[in-house]
């Protein structure tokens, strides 16, 4: 599978003489040294990420880690200092202004943390915006915008103004707007971070539901590990502008390769996040089977099923096929974060 979006050797340095600084950083100058000796800020350092078509790639990091800078490179709201950004094999850096606009209109839509809706336009007009920029027919814009507003659960709110809606509903408008653009790629910049926890969960579920039927390439930025683990097909962890680890989220959870990630991982409810598939072993004939479990269920469910009995074993089933075996002993062991260095 070729990647929908690939970022190769991307550097971003903030300062008047950024191009000259790239080589210094390549030769091993660190972020504090660069700031002290040359008064330039290292934003992103040698980022290489492949984002697969139809997957949700989550980029996670704390504030200041460069994640919002990174996502803005994809549609070139920020220009990189060095490196390549390929979308469907085309280098975005080579695009002229009008081709770039075309890319932003037809290939990538974006959802913002602070919603960024037009306050003087109605919900319907906001959802129509991507199409009206392209000068489409009013009837077509209406049909598309209403369809997606309906899909995100905003029926009957078409003629309201954004300020009359709650934060969660405003972000639904933001998502409807991005969907109306009908692009393959959706960039979501901390899209749910400004929302209340309960509403955030709703929105995450809505996104997963939409993704199940639309199979878009979603690049999602967050600082919340729980959210990242819930949504990610591919998880990229950023720290100080560099990728610390990336891969399948369950794998990162079980094999953190950096103390920074271990810190992150130690706080979360592993039983809820880890899935049976991640802790199962190959089927073995001699083990007594106490029942069947779905590969996608989380460990919490299995613990409830077993009633806390660690001697039990279950067969793991996916799409009606037995694909592995999970022993309660292994499962309980997976709940404890590994200490550093004992991999």
């Amino acid at each position, binding site marked *: 599978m070729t990647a929908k979006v690939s970022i190769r050797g991307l550097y971003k340095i903030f300062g008047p003489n950024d191009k000259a600084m790239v080589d210094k950083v390549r030769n091993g100058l660190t972020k504090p040294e660069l700031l002290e000796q040359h008064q330039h800020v290292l934003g992103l350092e040698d980022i290489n990420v492949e984002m697969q078509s139809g997957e949700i790639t989550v980029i996670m990091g704390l504030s200041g880690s460069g994640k919002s800078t990174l996502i803005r490179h994809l549609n070139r709201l920020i220009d990189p200092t060095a490196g390549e950004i390929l979308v469907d094999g085309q280098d975005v850096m080579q695009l002229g202004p009008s081709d770039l606009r075309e890319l932003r209109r037809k290939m990538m839509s974006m959802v913002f943390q602070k919603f960024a809706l037009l*306050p003087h336009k109605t919900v319907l007009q906001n959802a129509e915006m991507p199409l009206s920029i392209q000068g489409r027919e009013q009837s077509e814009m209406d049909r598309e915008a209403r369809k997606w507003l309906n899909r995100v659960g905003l029926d009957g709110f078409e003629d309201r103004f954004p300020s009359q809606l709650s934060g969660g509903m405003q972000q639904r408008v933001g998502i409807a707007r991005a969907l109306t653009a009908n692009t393959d790629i959706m960039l979501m910049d901390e899209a749910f971070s400004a929302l209340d926890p309960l509403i955030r969960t709703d929105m995450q579920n809505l996104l997963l539901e939409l993704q199940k039927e639309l199979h878009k390439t979603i690049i999602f930025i967050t600082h919340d590990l729980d959210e990242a683990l819930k949504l990610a097909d591919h998880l990229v962890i950023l720290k100080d502008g560099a990728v610390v680890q990336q891969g399948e989220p369950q794998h990162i959870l079980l094999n953190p390769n950096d103390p920074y990630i271990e810190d992150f991982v130690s706080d979360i409810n592993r039983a809820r996040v880890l899935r049976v598939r991640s802790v199962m072993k190959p089927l073995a004939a001699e083990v007594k089977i106490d029942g069947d479990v779905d590969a996608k269920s989380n460990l919490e469910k299995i613990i409830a099923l077993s009633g806390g009995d660690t001697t039990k074993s279950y067969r793991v089933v996916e799409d009606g096929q037995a694909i592995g075996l999970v022993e309660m002993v292994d499962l309980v062991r997976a709940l404890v974060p590994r200490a550093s260095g004992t991999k």
Partner: protein
Amino acid sequence: MARYEGLFDALGLREWCDADKTEAPMSMAQLLAQASGGSEEATGPVLPFPSLDTLNEACARIGQTRDLTEGIEQGFLAIRGQLKFVLDPLTQPLSWMLDGALWVFETAPWWFMMPLLILVSWFVSKSRGVTLFVAFVLFFFAAIDHYNVAMQTLAIVFVCTGLSVGFGVPIGIGMSKSDTAQRMIVPILDLLQTLPTFVYLIPLIFLFSVTESKLFGIAIILYAIVPVIRLTDLGIRLVDKDVIEAANAFGMTNRQKLVRVELPLALPNIMAGVNQTIMMSLAMVVIASLVSAPGLGVLVLRGIRNLELGVGIVAGLGIVLLAVILDRVSKAALARVDKQRNTH
């Protein structure tokens, strides 16, 4: 006298100084001294500041301060011909517009004009109270026989405000897009705003004939255009960066961004600027009556010249009433724009 003579002697400049000396008194102080018959030493401070006039006493070759003002005047007169050649045709439409507006406001009968103005204020403000107040003020003007002068003032204010907005908003947009432009224009705006209003009139009188209406038109516009420029610039710069980013992310062109995002979001600020512009052109219209602008200002001027207290006060209060109705109507329009997007 001539305390600095020694200095010039010491520098060996005496000959140069006295090269074309005349005995005629050259400064006001010398004239006064001569008139009082005193050739004796003046009893000024022991060491006066070596200003141009003082140095001139010691050395005739150094110019007096009077020569500076004289030089400015001569310089202006020297380029006056060319300036007039360029500016006269450029500003001629302003005269036509002002004369046209004055003609329309004066010749339209009161039973047509008054209902029209009341209707306009209703459509702009959509507020019953404001409209009633406008009606009351118009009837009051008519009742005390000030209807015609009030209409003249209104005509001038409308034309000058319209032109100020027409030029000011694009200038403000340009300023908001370029920091260099902003750095260059802001000092000019400061100058226009702080220059005493009478000083505007002086070069204009030299350039154009006093009978032309563009003379006061230019003075009013120069004075009143400042707030609309400033607030357009400010309004566009204050537009939410997130919304601008969204506009970029969805591929808006610069033009689309300006028309669909920046101007609508800056509208409350621009409207506040328009309101200020109206107020300032109304203030200037009085001073402009010095250079033949018709309207209530003429009556104020008559009040001052002839010490006709009543005439001056009634005309002055009339201007206040005009200011209040223009302010209320434009503020009501502004409030309507704000309300439409914030509450329901």
